[in-house]
């Protein structure tokens, strides 16, 4: 990932070699290593696969524009998560202002089928996904974000605290409550 720091976008005059993503090795690497995590976060925060795809696209496009500003203070993944969280938050605010609500539990699984081995397995995966989405939708937004970040093994507690703009102690305290809220709500969705 040091490539990103060493090879920023120098000027608005894009290098012709960068017209093709394949020519930008650092950005391709960035996308390949993080697209799944960013897409999943967007999917569960927004609850809609099409909106999640749009959000992931926008997050990486923003990242491409800002690659030159990335200072390396945080990990690249944390930086991308920060962009994604802010983007999803802005979308939610815009929807609330326009009174648009996403209710796409079914669409999540209709348009984003999992690679499964059997119809029974597919059904189980679909049900699990619906239950998790439903559970996350019902618990407080703050807990939802903490749990989604916590599920990423690569993030430390300190990084979760930074991403949620809270102290480390505050996050530690909320993790237990978030887990409890999830467990209780998940049991009710059975």
């Amino acid at each position: 990932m040091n490539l990103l720091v060493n090879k920023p976008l120098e000027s608005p005059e894009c290098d012709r070699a960068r017209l093709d993503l394949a020519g930008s090795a650092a950005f391709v690497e960035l996308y390949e290593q993080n697209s799944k995590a960013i897409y999943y976060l967007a999917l569960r925060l927004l609850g809609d696969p099409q909106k999640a795809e749009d959000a992931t696209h926008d997050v990486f496009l923003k990242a491409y524009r800002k690659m030159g500003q990335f200072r390396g203070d945080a990990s690249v993944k944390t930086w991308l998560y920060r962009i994604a969280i802010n983007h999803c938050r802005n979308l939610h605010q815009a929807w609330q202002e326009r009174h648009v609500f996403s209710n796409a539990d079914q669409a999540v699984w209709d348009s984003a089928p999992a690679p499964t081995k059997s119809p029974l397995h597919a059904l189980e995966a679909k049900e699990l996904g619906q239950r998790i989405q439903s559970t996350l939708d019902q618990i407080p937004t703050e807990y939802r974000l903490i749990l989604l970040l916590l599920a990423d093994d690569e993030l430390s507690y300190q990084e979760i605290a930074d991403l949620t703009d809270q102290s480390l102690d505050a996050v530690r305290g909320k993790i237990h409550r978030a887990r409890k809220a999830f467990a209780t709500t998940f049991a009710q969705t059975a």
Partner: protein
Amino acid sequence: MKRERKLNFRPEHQEQVSVSEQTSHHQEEAESAEELIRSDAARITVPPGLAQRLSDSVREECAAAAVVHPRLPWWKRLLK
């Protein structure tokens, strides 16, 4: 269990049985939250067309930037 170790911030004077029970309880909670989310995430795939769409957007972005900042001689850019 790196994360569980980080979560052991209870007072040390609690009884051993109580601590082990609570740790066990927390582990169950963790399994029912993070583990479920991880298994869910493992099943989700990124839409296959996204990379191409992003590539097209980057290409458009670069083309637009080239129009705004054409490769003109420095003296022509000064007059613009």
